[in-house]
C-alpha cells in the first residue's frame, strides 16, 4: 500500500506502555522492538519464522516478531520478555528456567519463555500434545529441551 518513502504512525502498547512512533511500512516488529525501542531481549536468529527466538505475545497470542510488519501492530497490546519480571522478582517461568538449568547460552530463552507464557495463559494445564503444539516452533540448539520441559512443567504447578 505504502511506497518506500511513506512512513507510518504506529500506536500500540508495549509492556503496558503506550507507544507512538514513526515506522517504515516494511519494518518488522522484531526490528522495531530491538533497534527503535532498544528492547533487545527479543532475539533474532533465523529471521524467517523457523526458530521462535523472536517470540513475543501480541493480544495474548505468541507471534514470531520477525514475520510481522509494524503496520499490523496498530492498536495491539505487545508483551516482551522485558515486561515479565516485577521489579526484582522474577516471573515464575524465569525462576523455573533458572532453577532447571533451561538456559545454557540463553539465546533461545526469551522466545521460549514468551511462548510458554502464551501457552499457559491460554491453557494452564496443557496435555503433552498441547504442550508440543505450543512449543514446537521454538528451537534450542544447546539444551536438548529436557531442562526446558522440566522448567515449564514445574511452572505449571504454580500457575495462577
Amino acid at each position, binding site marked *: 500500500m505504502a511506497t518506500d518513502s511513506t512512513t507510518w504512525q504506529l500506536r500500540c502498547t508495549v509492556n503496558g506502555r503506550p507507544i507512538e512512533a514513526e515506522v517504515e511500512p516494511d519494518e518488522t516488529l522484531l526490528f522495531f522492538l530491538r533497534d527503535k525501542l532498544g528492547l533487545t531481549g527479543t532475539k533474532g536468529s533465523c529471521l524467517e519464522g523457523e526458530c521462535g527466538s523472536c517470540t513475543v505475545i501480541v493480544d495474548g497470542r505468541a507471534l514470531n516478531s520477525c514475520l510481522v510488519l509494524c503496520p499490523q501492530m496498530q492498536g495491539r497490546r505487545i508483551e516482551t520478555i522485558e515486561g515479565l519480571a516485577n521489579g526484582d522478582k522474577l516471573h515464575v517461568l524465569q525462576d523455573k528456567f533458572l532453577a532447571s538449568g533451561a538456559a545454557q547460552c540463553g539465546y533461545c530463552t526469551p522466545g521460549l519463555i514468551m511462548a510458554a507464557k502464551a501457552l499457559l495463559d491460554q491453557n494452564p494445564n496443557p496435555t503433552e500434545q498441547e504442550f508440543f503444539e505450543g512449543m514446537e516452533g521454538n528451537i534450542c540448539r544447546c539444551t*536438548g529441551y529436557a531442562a526446558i520441559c522440566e522448567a515449564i512443567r514445574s511452572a505449571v504447578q504454580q500457575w495462577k
Partner: protein
Amino acid sequence: MRNGDSTHQEPQAIKASPPLRTEPLVEPSSTPYKELPKGPVGRSERRIDGPEKVLGTALYGADLFFGKADYFAQVVRSEKAHALIRSIETGDALRMPGVVAVYTAKDMPGTNRQGLIHRDHPVLAEDRVLYRGDGVAIVVAESERAVRRGRDAVKVLYEELPVVADFDDALAEDAPRLHPDGNIMGGKRIRKGDADAALSASDVIVSETFVTQTVDHAFLDIEAGIACWDGHLLTLHVSGQWAHEERRLTALALGLPMEAVRIITPATGGAFGGREDLSMQVYLGMVALKHPGKTIAMRYSREESMRARHKRHAMRIHYTIGAMRDGTLTAAKITVYSNEGAYASTGPAVLRKAASHATGPLRIPNVYVDVYGVYTNNNPTGAMRGFGACQMAIAYNGMMDRLAERLGMDRADLWKQNLIHSGDAVTTGQIIPIATAVECLDAALRQYRAKKQHDRPLAPHERRGWGISVICFGLGYGDGFPDASRATVRLTPAGRLEVYTGGVEYGQGLLNMAGQVAAEELGMPFSLVDVIWADTGRTQESGSSSATRQTYFTGNAVKIAASELREQVLDIASKLLPVHPHELDLHDGKAVGRFNPSLVVPMAKLIEEGRKRGYSLEASGIFKPRTVCEDFDTGQSPRSFITYLFGSHIAQVVVDMETGEVRVERYVACHDVGKAINPQSVAGQMIGGATQGIGMALMEEVVMDGGVMRNANFTDYILPTFRDVPTIETIILENDDPGGPFGARGIGEPPLIAATPAVLSAIGNAIGVAPHTTPCNPQRVWELLYPDDAQTPYAARLTTAPPHALLSK
C-alpha cells in the same frame, strides 16, 4: 613448538584401586539432580549468568548496536565457488545515498590473512575466490538499509574456473590446483604392529565404507558485533571461542601490534566450534581503522552466517577390521578422506584427532590408519564439537555391529571382550591409567534393561531396534601442543571473590565451573563469586573453549590460583588467632579452627586485616601440562593427550518401514566425568550433546551442489525440535581423574560423539541393514531397505522376504 619430553616415563600399567564405580553417585534421571552435601563443588548451583539470560538483559553481539553504531558495514561475498576476480566495480555503490566507503583487499593494512593453523585464507579475496562465501569487499554506510543497498550495488566481474565439488573431483588427475601444494592439505598416519599380516591371519574380516555429512553449527546467536579505533586501541566486541588468539590473528591481519587490539567477548549464544575461526573481527577492525572515533557495527543474516562459516568435515572412511572366531579383534586398516573445503581452518587438528581416535576405546594390536584432507571449493571445514573423533566413532561403532552380526555374537559381549581396561593402550600407544569404557557400558546396559518400559505395540509397518555405542575422547589439543590456562582470583574490599579467566562462556557452563572451584577452595559461599571472562584487557590467556578442555585446564588454573590465595588468607587468620595456619580451615566464608571450632574469623574481617597488613589478596595460577608429540611415521606417543574420557549410549528407535522415518523412543547416556563440578550443567551438556548427535544421525546435512549451498537457512537445514528428542536418561559416573580439579575430567564433546553411532546402531538393529551414510534420513533408510528399487512399497516387499541380513559382505 614441540615439547620433546625426554624425562617423561611411560606410566606402568596402573590398575585403579579401589574398584571403579559403575554406579552413579546420583540417581539417574533426566533432571533434576540430587545434590551432595559439600561445598559448591558437586552442587548444581544456579548459573552465574542465568538471571540476565532469563530476564533478557544479557547483551549478545547484536544487542550492542542500539544507540551506539555510527556506521554499519557489510561484506560482499563471492557468488562463485571458484573464479578469478577480474574487477570490482564500486562506483554505483558509492553513489548510493548513505554509503560512506567500499573497501577491497588493497585497502587492507596488514597481511590480509587469517587461519588458525595455516594463515592461508585472505580476509578479502585478492585475485581469486575459492568458495561461494569468500569475502570480496566491505561496504560502509550510515544505516543498515543503505549498507544493504550498497552491498547489492557492488559489481564483481569473475572469470569462472572449474569447480572442485568434492573429494573425487579434487583427486582427479586433471583437477584444478586449489592451493600451491596441490589439493591434498595434509595427512596423518598411525602404524602399530602389522595390520596386513594380522588381517590375513584373522578368521573373519569385515569391510565397510562410511560416508559422513557436512554439518553446520547452527548456533542461534548469529555473528554480530561492534568495533571502535580511538587512535591507539582497537576495541572489538565480537563473540569467539578464544579471545587472546582472536586478538593475535586480528592484529596480524591488520598489521597492528597485538597490544593495540582488545577483544571483549559479549554474551555468546552457542558456538560448538563454529566461532573458532575468525568471523567478522578483521572486517570490523579494518573499517574501524579507516574511520577513527566511529563505532562500526556489523551483523550477518542467517544465510550469510551459514554461507561464510566453516563446517564439520564430511568424511569418507574405508574401514577393514579383523577378528578371531571367538571375537578377539586382531587388526584394523583404515583410510579416511576428509573434505577440507577451500581453506585449512583447523583441519590439520581434526585430521590428527581422527587418526588418534580411529579405533576409539577398542583394544586392537595391529592398526594402520591413513587420513587425508582434501581441498575442494566448498566451505572450509574445521572445528565442530567432536572434531574428527565423532566421524571415526560412527565407523568403529558401525564395524562392531557388523562384526557381531557376522560372528553371531551378542553386541554387548563383543564390545566387552574388546574394550580397553585400565592400564591398556589406545591406538597411539598411550597407556590409559583409568579406563572406564566397560564401566560406562555396564551402567548404560543396566539402566536400559532395568527400566525397560512397556514399549507401545508396533503397527505392522513398524520395526523396533536398539543400539549401543561406546566411545573415548582424549581431551585438549594434546599431541605436543603447548596448551595452557591461566587464572587469577582476588578478594575484593567488598568481601566478594573475583575469578578472572580468559576462557569464553558460550552456554557450556564455564563461569560456574570456574566460580565453584574457586569458592570451594576458599571456603566461600558461591553467591559471593563474580567471574570476569574473555576480555583481553582484563584477563589472562586461558586457551580456547573447545576440545572439552576448559574444566580440566582452566579448572586446574583456578584451583592453583585459589589455593595460593587460600594460603594468604590462612596466614592472615593465624595472625588474629592463636593457632598455626595449618590448624585452620576455610569454610562458609569464615576461617575456623580445625581442632577448636570456637575459633572463628569471618572473611570480611580477614580481608580488612589483610589489606591493613599489606597482603595482596590476589593470586594467579597457570596450568600447563605437557603432552608428547605423536611420532610422524607411526603416530605413537606415550602421552598424546592429557587424559581420556569414556562414555556409552543406548538408543532405542522405531522405524516406519513405509516412510523410512525414524523416531528415537528411548535413550540412555552414560559418561564418566571424573567429578561433576556442577551436575546439572554436566547433565545439560550430556542431553544437549546427545541431541546434536541425534540431529547428525537423522537429519542435519549441509547440501552442497557444485559448490553451491542449497540449504543456507533454517527452513531447509533441519534441526532437532522438541518432538525429535525423547527423554534422555543420564548416568554420571565419577571415577576421579588424579590430575583433574577435584578429580574432574570434562564433558563437552563426548555426548555428541557417542550419540550418532548409537542411533545408527539402533536403526541397523531395527531394519536388519546397518547404515553407512549420515544423516540416516527417510530417503537413506529407504535406500537401505530397497537398494534396487527405491519405489517399491514396503507392502509389496512383504510378500517376498523381509529385508535383512546385515552385512552380507
